């Protein structure tokens, strides 16, 4: 692993950068990035199962404090990182977007766990949002259900690497007049309005779930309800229907 806790080595990229921009800007950049990467305060914000692993990450065994990131702030104003830990339902999504809008720049988002990335195992539910990246930009996606605490630490280091690559003059929140606030979706009669924000996310042809994996509901189509009024079938054999043999590997 190429992770360096102090990020003090001067690599080739940095040298060429030094040649281009001069020492002052580069040092400033470095200082600035170092400050942000070493003091990422997450928001105390858990949604579901992954939140427990997030807490476990802050606890003794894994100790996120080593990275200076154990100060879980309850207020979005004071936090730098939103860890979307758990399923974002349609009922919760507006609040998540609002919290994101309330955070002060520079702000980062890690989606922790399958659910917050794309809906995860609950993707076919009527109240489950298929990924919070439909409304807000995400910096690091962290798959797993739930990801191990170590994986969250890995995600944090991934975020630190991302921060290391940023520069003051190109980071967007120092551009004039730009504030990253995204419209908060409304509740509609069947789901959220809008279903996604095309500024942030657009559907991809290759991943159309309906075409690839079929419709979300299999048995909405069962046309016959069980009739419990009838007495149970005579016990032919106590066993349920025997298993069909798996398909023959031999053709």
């Amino acid at each position, binding site marked *: 692993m190429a992770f360096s806790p102090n990020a003090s080595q001067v690599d080739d990229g940095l040298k060429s950068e030094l040649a281009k921009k001069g020492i002052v800007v580069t040092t400033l950049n470095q200082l600035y990035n170092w400050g942000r990467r070493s003091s990422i305060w997450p928001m105390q914000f858990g949604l579901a199962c992954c939140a427990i692993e997030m807490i476990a990450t802050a606890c003794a065994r894994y100790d996120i404090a080593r990275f200076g990131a154990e100060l879980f702030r309850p207020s979005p104003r004071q936090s730098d990182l939103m860890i979307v830990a758990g399923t974002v339902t349609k*009922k919760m999504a507006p609040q998540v977007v609002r919290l994101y809008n309330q955070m002060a720049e520079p702000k980062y988002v890690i989606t922790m766990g399958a659910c917050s990335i794309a809906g995860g195992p609950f993707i076919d539910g*009527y*109240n489950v949002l*298929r990924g919070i990246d439909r409304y807000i930009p995400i910096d690091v996606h962290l798959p797993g259900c739930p990801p191990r605490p170590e994986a969250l630490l890995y995600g944090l280091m991934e975020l630190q690497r991302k921060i290391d690559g940023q520069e003051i003059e190109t980071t967007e929140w120092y551009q004039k007049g730009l504030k990253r606030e995204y*419209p908060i979706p*409304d*509740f*509609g*009669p*069947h*789901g959220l*309005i*809008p*279903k*996604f*924000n*095309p*500024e942030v996310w*657009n*559907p991809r042809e290759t991943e*159309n*779930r*309906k075409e690839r994996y079929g*419709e*979300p*509901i*299999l*048995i*909405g*189509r*069962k*046309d*016959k*309800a*069980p009739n*419990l*009024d009838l*007495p*149970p079938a005579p016990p032919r054999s106590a066993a349920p229907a025997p298993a069909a043999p798996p398909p023959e590997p031999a053709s």
Partner: protein
Amino acid sequence: MLSTADLKTKIEAAIPGTTLKLVRESLLLENPNDLLKVARFLKESDLGLDYLSSVTGADYLTYLESVYHFYSMAQKSGPVVLRVRTDRQNPQIPSLTALYRGAEFQEREAYDMYGIVYEGHPDLRRVFMWEGFEGWPMRKDYQQEDSETLEMADVAWLENQGVKVPEPIKAKAEELEKQGKRALAQKPGQPEPQ
């Protein structure tokens, strides 16, 4: 503990006019309006079924059902399963909240999921979905929206917020609007071969 058949005769004897039917191990109450009377009998007679463990709805395509599981905490006996059926168009069942506080949230849940209206419930609102949600999501004919396709309402909302909607998406939404359709995740109607 009495057997289900004995229980049936006992209740029918105690509350004249009620008819119960044996459905497997449970009792089907023919007339939903008797529910309160039967429940009161269950709670206050020597059966002592003071604990309503579970209330749930179910959709059987032609009718909706509400299933109650009673236990007795004092006598540590149970369960007595009571079921009540109601039609799909105008589902109405008396509420047990006055008798069993524990039914309050569970009846709200069944209302939210199946649209069963529990008469006499003090606060019958949707519990999980938001107010303004249409449809009863756990019914078997509920159709989910297609979350990949924008509809005209979404496009209008986005443009109102000053978000630029890409042309192809907008065109698709307009097309749908013209056809008067919603973007659904399922093809309506056809039963899928099992």
